Structures are given as C-alpha cells and as structure tokens.
C-alpha cells in the first residue's frame, strides 16, 4: 500500500524510509563489487541477501559500508577480505529469539520443518531485547537478584495453531531489534573487531588474518555465547591491544594468536585464558 506523500515524508524523517529500500543496498553493492575479488563478491552478495532477510536493507547497507572500509577506489586490495566478509556476516547474523523464530518459520516455508527449533538464552539476553535505557534498568534488577545468567530454553514450533502464533509474534521482534540494547552491544563488538583488525594491520601485518579469525571463537547463544565473548575480550585486552599500544615487549602476534585461538577453541574460563596469555607474553624471548 502506498502512503500519501505527507505520511511518506514523515516516515522518512523519523524512520529513515529513504534507505529502507533494497535498491539502496543493491546500488551500493554494485559500486563495491568491481573492487572485490570474485569469490569475495559472491560472499558479499549472499551476505547482503541474508542480512536483508534477517533485518532490513539498512542493515545490509551497514555491512557493505563496513566491507567498503577495506575495498574501494584508491584502496589497496586486502588478502583477508574474503575471510573478513564471511565472518562479519556471521557476526551480524547473531542469534536472538527473533532470529531463531525467523529461522523456524523459514524452514517451515521451505517445507522441511520437523521438530520445533529451540535455543538456550540467558535472562540477560531477553532483557537485551528492550531499548537500552529500559534494558539497563532491567539488567541492574536481574544482577541484584542474581538472575542474569539464569538459562531459559525457548522453543519455536512452526506448525499451524496457536504455537505458530507465538513463533510469528517473536519473529516480529526483528522490527524492534535495531533499537535494542543487544543490537547496540553487537554493533560495538563488530566495530571493536574491525578497529583491532585495522590496528593490527598497521602494527604487525602478518598477524591480521589471526585477528580476523578471532571472530570464530564467538558463536551460539546463552551462556556459551557470553563465555566466548568474555574470552574474545580477554584476547583483545590482554594480548592484541597491549601489542598495538606498545606496552608489552614486542612479540610475534601472529604466532601468539595461533596459540591463543587454539586454547580458546575449548571454551575455557576467561580467567584461565587470561593466565595462559600472561604466561605466553612472559615466556617470549626479548
């Protein structure tokens, strides 16, 4: 349904309607593709399609602008761009109740739905669906009651009936996702990852692929996800950032990252990983 022009202008003013059209993202992709290697261009095309389905064209545009930081007119082609593009897509398609419900409905639409889709979340993840101010208050209350890490398993059946309504209702949360606390946290996470890639590229170029691969240790949802994220922050705060800032003795960051990523693959406690990294830095010859 086409809205009268005044309403469209109001929508554009307050909701940014001009860029909520798929052609805006598609045009940006057309501009970017000539500067990408063919295999990376395929990854980017697939990512744009999946991000539009996951969120909206604005979100796909954000992805393209992030890829555009490393490719474009006058920029040196990066060997790691394909790895970065695929991992960034994975990170931007983070798991939340709305995405699990969306996946359940999509499976049903494809005709291969079987058992209801489910995922484990912490109560803090559910509070993260709220806008930042409301979520912060809810998180403070949960932290006081020590309920933040309480696990909740949500199931999303896609069969017809009232259970499907629940799945459809949860999937609708994707429209408010961009205004949630979780979206802000995830956005900051991706920006930090890109920022550290940029810094490592300047300080120790051979280690940049290792820095790109650090994104692999963060996956899933619920308690596992929170532990992965804490481990990732430990790696950045205790190893990568001090090396970039020059506050520790110079070490081979690429080798150090290989060792640390191998250790982090087993999902250790963040404190254990921290000890491991500290020992690694202390053992390095000058």
């Amino acid at each position, binding site marked *: 349904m086409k809205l009268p022009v005044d309403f469209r202008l109001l929508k554009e003013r307050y909701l940014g309607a001009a860029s909520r059209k798929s052609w805006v993202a598609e045009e940006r992709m057309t501009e970017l593709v000539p500067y990408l290697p063919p295999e990376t261009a395929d990854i980017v095309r697939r990512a744009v399609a999946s991000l539009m389905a996951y969120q909206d064209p604005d979100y796909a545009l*954000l992805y393209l*602008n*992030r890829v555009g*930081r490393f490719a474009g007119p006058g920029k040196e082609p990066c060997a790691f761009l394909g790895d970065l593009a695929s991992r960034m897509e994975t990170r931007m398609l983070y798991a939340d109740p709305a995405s699990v419900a969306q996946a359940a409905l999509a499976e049903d639409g494809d005709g291969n739905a079987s058992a209801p889709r489910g995922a484990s979340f912490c109560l803090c993840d559910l509070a993260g669906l709220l806008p930042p101010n409301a979520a912060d208050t809810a998180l403070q209350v949960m932290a006081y009651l020590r309920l933040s890490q309480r696990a909740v398993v949500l199931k999303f059946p896609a069969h017809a009936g009232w259970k499907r309504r629940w799945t459809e209702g949860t999937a609708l949360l994707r429209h408010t996702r961009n205004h949630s606390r979780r979206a802000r946290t995830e956005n*900051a996470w991706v*920006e*930090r990852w*890109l*920022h550290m890639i*940029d*810094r490592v590229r300047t300080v120790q170029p051979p280690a940049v692929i290792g820095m790109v691969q650090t994104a692999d240790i963060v996956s899933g949802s619920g308690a596992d996800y929170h532990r992965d994220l804490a481990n990732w922050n430990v790696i950045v*705060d205790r190893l990568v950032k001090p090396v970039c800032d020059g506050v520790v003795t110079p070490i081979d960051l690429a080798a150090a990252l290989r060792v640390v990523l191998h250790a982090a693959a087993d999902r250790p406690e963040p404190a254990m990983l921290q000890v491991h990294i500290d020992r690694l830095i202390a053992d390095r010859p000058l």
Partner: protein
Amino acid sequence: MDISGAASDMSGLASGAGGLIASAFVVAGYTMRTMIPLRIVGIITNVVFIIYALSHRNYPIVALHMILLPLNVYRLREMLVLVRNVKRSVSGNLSMNWLKPFMTERRCEVGEVLFYKHELAKEMFYIVSGRFRLVESGIELPVGAIVGEFGMLSPDNERTQTLECVEKGLVLSVTYQKVEELYVQNPEFGFYFLRLVSARLFQNVGRLEAQVAALSGKPSP
C-alpha cells in the same frame, strides 16, 4: 437618542474586533517559518487572548494562555541566549560551551571507546572530566574539548579517529539531529554555527601548517 443601546452596540463591536485581532495573531503564528518570530507572535497572541478572555470572563481561556505565555517567553529567551552565545564564540575563543544546555551526561570507564574510526558519526561530545585519547594520532584531549563536530559536516559522516577513555570521566553528548533541529529552527544560529565550525577548521589547518613548518625547519608562511 438611546445612549445605553449605542454603548451596548459599541461594546459588541469592540468585543468582535478583539476576537478578530486575537484570531489574526493565531493565523500569523501559523505562517511563521522559524522559531524566534513564531515565539514573538505567540507571546503577542497570548497577551491579546488574555485581555479578550478577561473582558468576556472566559476563565478557562485565560488560564490556558497564562500557562502558554511563560512557556513562550522561556523558549524565546533560550533561543536568544543560544544565538548570543554562538556569536560570542565566533568572535571570541571559538568554544562550543553554549551547546551544554542541549547535552546529556554520559559516564565513561577506563578502556571504554566512545567511537571507532570509520564508524558512522551521530553525535558530538564535550569532555567534562577524565582523560580521553584519540587512538590513531595518540593525541590526548583536554577537559573542555569538543570532539566530533566535524563529523556532522563531513560528506560521508564517518569518524576519522577512535576515541578511548584512559581515565574514568564524564562527557556530555548531543546528537547531530538535535544540532540540525536548532540549525533549521533558527537560521541566525545556523549562520553563526557554520562560521564557528569553519573558524575551528581554519585554526586546525593553521596548527598543522605550523607543525609541518617546524618539522621541515622552514618558517610557517
């Protein structure tokens, strides 16, 4: 000659004229494009309506305009003070302290990053306390510095550096949308704001020229 009848006619005419004048001011208010003339006409409308409604003993209308009058006076004063402060900044120390009343507080912890390089810029910050460092250039920003004002005017709206908190502190932030609103509502403010940002840009260019000259050993032009 019936004097009382004539007086009654005159009073009816005056009453009708009063209503017409008050209505004319309402219409005039709606035609205003910018904030300061709108508020001035709003204040005149309030006064005319109060007199008109008092003469008719219409107390709800009196009460309504008694509420609206101080509101209009407050908003008008806010705009006039803003314009005066921006003008003073342009001809003075180029500070942007006048933005403070429109800003919101944000506490920052050590290691917290306010924004990353290449990130889409949406707000500018005023440093109240603590220590903040631009990561890429290593420059530490002093208390009282405004950071992020050029992002609003740059064509791609991208951050050019990363800002990190190195000692716990407080910043005030204002969104570009808020500044844009002030700009559109008040063209005089917009004009002086542009002059101020350009002056700050020229100041930076001058500083860079001096640094280049110092590095190359030649006197700056």
